[in-house]
């Protein structure tokens, strides 16, 4: 089965689960439970958060975090390790709409091959928005988009990627402690370059569940699949994360482990958020 088809099947299953779940309230984003952040884990697989699923519920908050990323392929004498400090923010325009942005304040990257090297600099800046257009019986559905700007400095030398994500994002509340979330969308990418631009298109699907057994603790499990005309970025990865804290100050520790995909990375992130 092709990666694209696998992703599609996964998406259908996800929506089936969402539809199957019993609604707990009219608007899952307005739940009365003291809640931590909702939605998929914010762990980056690719450049500039491309393909990273976005929550449906809006909030005004400021986050700082660190993320790491590693590929180890000893058989081919190849390895790479990437670390970044990230600042993110979002602004809720009412209940239904959120604008968000994220900047890799500094990225460190090393590639280990027959010769090794290190690169560092300001990373990607991404800007986006989400608008919920449907809320019904514990389910909310929105459209989301993210533009990754060619802001990266010191890391690329002759080409700067520009990417656009667009998709549908949904969250479903299942009782007091359980939530489902999912996003399906397209990714498009090109570069600003005097060399080849090699634009590509892709599909990304993320689905998962959150369980909040305690008011200050939640566990999140996600499955991510993506496929593109640029075949090597095909990946299936399983993620697990913890969210803890309170309604204003919270943190998320998440990691993804590749299940399939050539040289798919292990990725993790740690974010602390202050809800304003």
């Amino acid at each position: 089965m092709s990666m694209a088809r696998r992703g599609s099947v996964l998406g259908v299953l996800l929506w089936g689960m969402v539809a199957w779940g019993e609604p707990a309230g009219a608007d899952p984003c307005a739940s009365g439970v003291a809640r931590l952040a909702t939605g998929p884990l914010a762990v980056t697989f690719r450049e500039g958060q491309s393909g990273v699923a976005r929550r449906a519920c809006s909030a005004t908050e400021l986050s700082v975090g660190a993320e790491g990323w590693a590929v180890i392929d000893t058989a081919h004498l190849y390895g790479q390790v990437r670390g970044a400090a990230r600042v993110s923010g979002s602004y809720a325009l009412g209940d239904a709409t959120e604008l968000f942005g994220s900047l890799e304040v500094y990225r460190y990257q090393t590639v280990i091959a027959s010769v090794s090297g290190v690169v560092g600099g300001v990373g990607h800046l991404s800007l986006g928005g989400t608008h919920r257009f449907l809320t019904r019986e514990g389910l909310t559905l929105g459209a989301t988009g993210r533009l990754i700007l060619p802001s990266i400095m010191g890391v690329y030398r002759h080409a700067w990627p520009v990417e656009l994500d667009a998709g549908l994002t949904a969250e479903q509340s299942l009782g007091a402690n359980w939530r489902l979330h999912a996003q399906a969308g397209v990714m498009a990418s090109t570069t600003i370059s005097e060399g080849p631009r090699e634009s590509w298109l892709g599909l990304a699907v993320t689905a998962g569940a959150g369980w909040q057994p305690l008011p200050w603790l939640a566990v999140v499990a996600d499955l991510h699949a993506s496929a593109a005309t640029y075949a090597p970025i095909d990946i299936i990865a399983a993620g697990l994360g913890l969210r803890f804290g309170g309604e204003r100050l919270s943190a998320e520790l998440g990691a993804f482990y590749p299940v399939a995909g050539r040289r798919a990375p292990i990725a993790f992130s740690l974010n602390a958020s202050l809800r304003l």
Partner: protein
Amino acid sequence: MPKRIKVVRWSVMWGAIGVLSVLTAGCQSTSCLSADAGEDCVIPSPCEQLSFSCEGGRARIKIIEPGDELPEGLEVLASTGDFLLANDRVMAVVDALEHPHYFAPSGGALIDLVTVEGNRDSLTHIFQATGLLPRDAVRYTEHQFVEEGDIKALVLRGHLDGEPRHRVVTRYEIRPCEPGLRLRTEIYNGTPEPTMWTVSDGLFWGGRSNIPFTPGPGRGYTYPPLDLANVDGLIEETPYVIGTIHGVPGSAYVDVACNLEALQGFNGEKISAMGTPRHVVQPRDYEVFERFIGVVDGASVGPAADLALELRQQIHGEPWTTLSGKLVLAADDGRVDDEVRVTVFVSEGTTQMAEEARTPWTQITPGPDGRFSVRVPAGRPYVVEVRAFGRTVLARDVRVGSTPGDVGTLEVPPAAQLSVSVTLDGAPANAWVFLHPADEQTREAVTARMMEQGVLCAPMLGSQNGESPACNRLIARNGAFLLTVPPGHYDVYAAAGPFRTIAREPVRIQPATSRSVSLALSSLPLRPAGSLAADLHVHGAGSFDASISPSEQLEAILASDLDIAIISDHNVVQDYTALARTRGVQERLRLISGIETTGLILFDYVPGVSFPKVIGHWSFWSLPYVPDAPYRGAPWDQLIEPGTLFTRMYEAGMSEHGLIQLNHPWSVLEVGRDLAFSSAIGLDATRPLTSDYDGTAASLFNRKPEGSRFRNSDYHVQEVMSGTDNARYQAYRAFWFYLLNQGVIRGGTASSDSHGLARNMVGSPRSIVFTRTTVTDFDEEVFNADIRAGHVLGTNGPIIEASLIDGEGKTFRPSVNPFTPGSDARLRLRVTAAPWVPVEEIRIVVDGSVRRVLSAELHHPADPFGKDGLLRYEGELRVSELLPAAGKDAWIVIEAGHPLVPNADLDCNGIPDTGDNNGDGVIDWRDVDRNLDEVIDEKDLDTDGNGKISSADEPARCKTAVGPLQDPRPGTDRNEPRYHFAAVQQIAAASLIRMASGYPTAFTNPFLLDLDGVAGFRGPQQ
């Protein structure tokens, strides 16, 4: 999927792309790296800052056809089908895409570059790569000619060998009037993951050939040893790199970056890599490297550095000025334009600074009038240093402003003239002549390196890689040589092979004087009847790692008293027969064209080993010489297992009666490449050999590769002794013995593996081939058949005549053919040697174990320079007393010479690998020279690299690094017999702690005794 939804989905996608396209509009691609870039895409011209002008200049580009005018010189590789780029000043050849050479997986590399005026190619190979692994080299797949008015260019497209999405375009451009080529290489990361590149010219010097020179503190001709495990630590910046060859006519090459402030990379005797800084290249990003590769005539760095500084002035605006002066010899004792007699180094700094803190910028040998003039960066202080015979004789500070500077006249201390004449049986004849310091004062005063290279010579009379004089020796052509030497007290030795006497004459040579030395040699009745003296492994300048000219190698072959030499250049066939005819020696010497295939491109063929390997070195003869074909008629020999290689050789025209020889069969790595197939696959000589491939590395030995006519083990003979320095003899013989015990019967040979005059000396060791053919009526088929049959004695001096006689009067001689002797069989031995060859014991080896040692019974000559005392032993031994068990097949090999020094097998593979190198009486991990600096010290013991030596440093049993093997040392007593032997078989080495040489050794092929009553020979451990 409903059609409407599908349409919507694709609309969204293309809409997204449209948005991005609008955002990125105006960024028109100007590169030819796109996957769909067609032939109409023209890669930009490189180095646009440069401008050269001349009257009536022209440039041309073409595919070479038979009869075309081509570059000439020692290293020419051009063949029909290659690309020729030429202008009024230079000629360059880029190999055709289907003619890859050396490390490159395809053609498209620069293989020849000469000036039109000088036309002396000494370039080995310049290829493109982004790292150290084979996958990092560029494989070109398409070519295109571009003509833009006077500008001609060859554009090559391809990709990195390990990843087709790492696309590469290179433009070789030639313009009128320019002293070289402009190059631009673009490499695009078409994968979704970042990669690590240094886009570089791989400057394959070859070793013992060109040597690199780079400006930098403590650099010049000096650079740290190449350590592939720590290349990152070796990478340095340099404004230019220059390659020069010494001791033979050649050219100097210069590489200067056009789009970088400086080149980055590393230098080594064998290979340098110079290019862009190491960059992490992100997906869809690319790298561009523009440079100018120029050529000038001669051996000095000076003219090439002048060109480099001119290029950098045009590119970067760096001003240069001229520094000149004049050297005057204090006496009429040599030529001032001889780079050994006198040469000038110019380094930035002052004489007050330590040498390693100065930055050498150039080196120049004056013209015949003693004048020199070099360019240097303007406005800096310099030290002008004059060296004679490799040693600094004077240094002067000079500050150079923006106008030309002059250091005036510099008087060089006097040397002396030495006239050497050698006779053989009263008539002038070719001979080897050696100079050795006769006292410590002289040794200290004259020990030097040629252009700071690793090998020490005492005295240093010429490049160790070049022609006579080379290091401290020379070939006296027709018995005469006049040379200039540093004053001192010397022993002058002459030798002419193991069947002649040697002569020695001590001389004290005063400054500004002339001395004559006459040395008389005599033939000795040592040559066994019905035999030919053959060196089955000889290199010349056709090899990438040799620069001795064929004519000089021929003179050395004549001086060594050989009948047969197999010309075995690396990866190329050479033909010396015309040369022999010109020299008039075709009736007394047979020179057979062969090849030594040399694995250079690593590939994955050894199961269970994570790092790729090569298949080592193999010799083949005879091969047809095709002068206008790539590799001169040989097939491409990389990326295949031995069985396939054997098949290709026969397909290329190797005689069906030809021979395949496994060379130096148990060797160390060289530039990360195994020199031997057997050790590359990790054979374990403590275990039985599998007869078929079972998926294990060791079973590759007997594997028959797919499509091959042969198994990997289907070679005919192996070297048991290889190299004048036969320190590895114990390892080679252990492997041979292992195979004999396993029933794998191959003849054993001895070869010099000579690459020049100063290291392995042609003819030492040699194979004495017992054959009915003769030189004058030579039948190569008979000769090869006798080698194949094991009718060979390997020796560097002792002569063993061994036969086995049974009670019925039948006589058997060593051979790979088994026989069943009658009752009362006796081993008859006769050992002779020239008086200067010490023979201290005879060993009878049965089934791999020494069963008997004869030493007290041996005679020793009184005068090593005399003609008497040739017979060292003659007698008989009862075979039944030698055999371990009755009724079992057995084999017997006889050895004679120096006793073997104890060596141990630390890695437990059955092959000795390490001697008592620290002299503590125990052979263990503490004896291993881990950092390969030829000294066993605390640095070797700190195996965990934590700066402390503790019990934690001791490796587990059998898991240690190994080596080197220990061999007998001759000592320094000028009257000891071993001293004389070493004096005429000396190897130029990096250290003069001992006189590196071989030790006297000879071995027979086996007697294979078929005693078990079953037809055929069964190995004792089979």
